[in-house]
């Protein structure tokens, strides 16, 4: 059996709906026979009547509704049609869900699914990676699964967590990634995974950038360097200990992320290593991000805007020379 990243997300939701009566899915076009813009809920409305509900084009109210339901004991999953549109719901996610536990001592167990990241031709408003923005605010857990297995187990984890979770699923991985089957258990939430071991340089990545980073590591392996590649899995909490331990072995750090460069996950990784592990570094840490412009439409522009294995490899070679 072969299963894609997208199918894993669907299967996780099917399991959640089957196992937990508190779960329902709310979002644009998720219900009926349509099953979502990307088909992540295909067939679920029929299998679970009344629990997979189409919502109006009202991202703010979708999340507000989920918050209210969560306060009454439900475990809502909100599907944003594209991560980009969650900007309309920022107020509910950040100011309502994100502050609620702190203010009232009552957590808000909502999961907001964000189909994230770039694909060819999607342009400025259907390509964004918003994990850095959500991670900046207190009160949220931000997941960025990079594998089929993690897409499955982390979504199940997300719904089980009493606090609000922003689950960033990468659209580029929807069909590109396949696994032989789905695991029963995953790694603990908040723990990064060392995907490839190495002694010369640590690349810290997550989501689709894991695969670009692995590809870069493969290229450079032919040149005699062994690169360690870490998948953060969740960007908040950020597994600083695993990153520091890796840098202690390699002495060099390259942080890679697809979101915009200013103040994002990569900046945070470097800040932590520089402040807590400066003595471990043999060279100045570096990072690769998307460019500081809106995300372009034409594939030629998009493939340059987005960090690629080639760019990551170039940056890694520079670091290895220092």
């Amino acid at each position, binding site marked *: 059996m072969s299963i894609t990243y997208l199918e894993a997300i669907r299967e996780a939701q099917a399991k959640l709906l089957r196992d937990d009566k508190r779960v329902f899915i709310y979002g644009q076009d998720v219900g009926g026979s349509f099953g979502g813009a990307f088909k992540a809920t295909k067939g679920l409305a029929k299998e679970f009547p009344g629990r997979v509900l189409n919502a109006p084009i009202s991202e703010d109210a979708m999340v507000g509704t989920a*918050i209210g339901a969560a306060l009454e004991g439900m475990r809502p999953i909100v599907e944003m049609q594209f991560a980009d549109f969650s900007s309309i719901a920022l107020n509910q996610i950040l100011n309502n869900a994100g502050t609620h536990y702190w203010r009232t001592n009552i957590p808000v167990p909502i999961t907001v699914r964000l189909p994230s990241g770039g694909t060819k031709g999607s342009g400025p408003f259907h390509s964004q990676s918003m994990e850095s923005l959500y991670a900046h605010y207190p009160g949220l857990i931000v997941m960025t699964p990079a594998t089929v297995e993690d897409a499955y187990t982390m979504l199940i984890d997300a719904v089980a967590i009493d606090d609000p979770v922003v689950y960033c699923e990468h659209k580029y991985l929807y069909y590109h990634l396949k696994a032989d089957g789905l695991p029963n258990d995953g790694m603990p939430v908040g723990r990064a995974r060392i995907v490839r071991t190495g002694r010369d340089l640590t690349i810290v990545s997550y989501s689709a950038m894991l695969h670009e980073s692995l590809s870069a590591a493969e290229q450079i392996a032919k040149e005699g360097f062994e690169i360690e590649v870490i998948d953060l899995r969740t960007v908040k909490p950020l597994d600083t200990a695993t990153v520091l331990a890796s840098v202690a072995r390699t002495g060099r750090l390259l942080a890679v992320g697809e979101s915009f460069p200013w103040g994002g996950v990569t900046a945070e990784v470097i800040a932590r290593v520089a402040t807590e592990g400066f003595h471990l570094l043999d060279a100045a840490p570096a990072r690769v991000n998307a460019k500081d412009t809106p995300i372009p439409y034409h594939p030629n522009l998009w493939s340059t805007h987005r960090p690629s294995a080639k760019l990551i490899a170039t940056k890694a070679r520079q670091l290895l020379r220092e």
Partner: protein
Amino acid sequence: MLQTARPKKKSQPKAPAHEKYLEAFRWMLLTRTFEEKLASMYRGGRITGGVYIGKGQEAVSVACGIFLQKGDIFAPLIRDQAGRSAFGEPLVDVARTYLGSRAGPMRGRDGNIHRGKPRDGQLAMISHLGAMVSVVVGSLMAKRGRGERNFIGLTTIGEGGMQTGATHEGMNIAAVEHAPLVVVATNNHYAYSTPNDREFACANLVDRARGYGFEGYELDGTDLAQCLDVIGSAVKRARAGRPPQLVVASILRLAGHGEHDDFSYVTDDIRKEPFAIDCLQRAEAFIKERELADAETLQRWREQAAEEVENAFSAAQSEPVPSGDDEDWSAISRRDLVDEIGEGGSS
């Protein structure tokens, strides 16, 4: 068919039972007494941050809380002390929140009117107007999903808050989900300092009800009898499964946006409008005119209100306030998932 009904100009709403009227009056009196004390403490520098009172809005507000039952959801806003009290919020919790007591519902982490007890159906508002409308809808959907019956939700908004996208999305989704919801919108004629003509351009805010699929009603918010009648009826209709209800009340805010605001922007002309009448004074005059309570009783109620207010502040003032050093600085309940960024929030 959905109707946007308006009371005919000359018709008088049926006065509700005198007992309800007097009960409501006493909540209004308690609120006015409490908020006068709050304002005085603010002027004396004894309250940090802002003080936001509902002077002139007590009749509308009390009618929002007084018909709610256990199991209902109430999402009040900043001028709803009367309604909060009528729905069961202990006055000491209000004093605790303003003074930042650790024993209060917000434990010094949030203040003034940003308070609630969600487990008791009292949602804790955020400052972003309109955000609570959809939250109430979600709570009602969950209750319906669990098979609960005979519950409603009531949330309040002002004419200023009615202009936000969140209110629009929330009201629309309420109707789409057939939520048993009452939205009470009070037009106090100013969004902070901005008058109605710079807030909206429709002829009448209640006309929006039909557009959303609500039933809409208007009332004179200075008249307690009308507030109880119209809002009480809307609550009954929502409980009976009618479409969501919008009630638009007209008043003048008889204080600043907060106590820091001298509301000098309120024109002399508008102060002479019928909607500028003080609802509490009007209710008291009504009680005297109808001889629903004698002067001695009214005086006793005043004294009892003053005593209750003193007790609330006295209790809250004796309680410990939070300490930055002892605080549990965790914004999530899962302590094992707290991001360890380093002491003091910096690495």
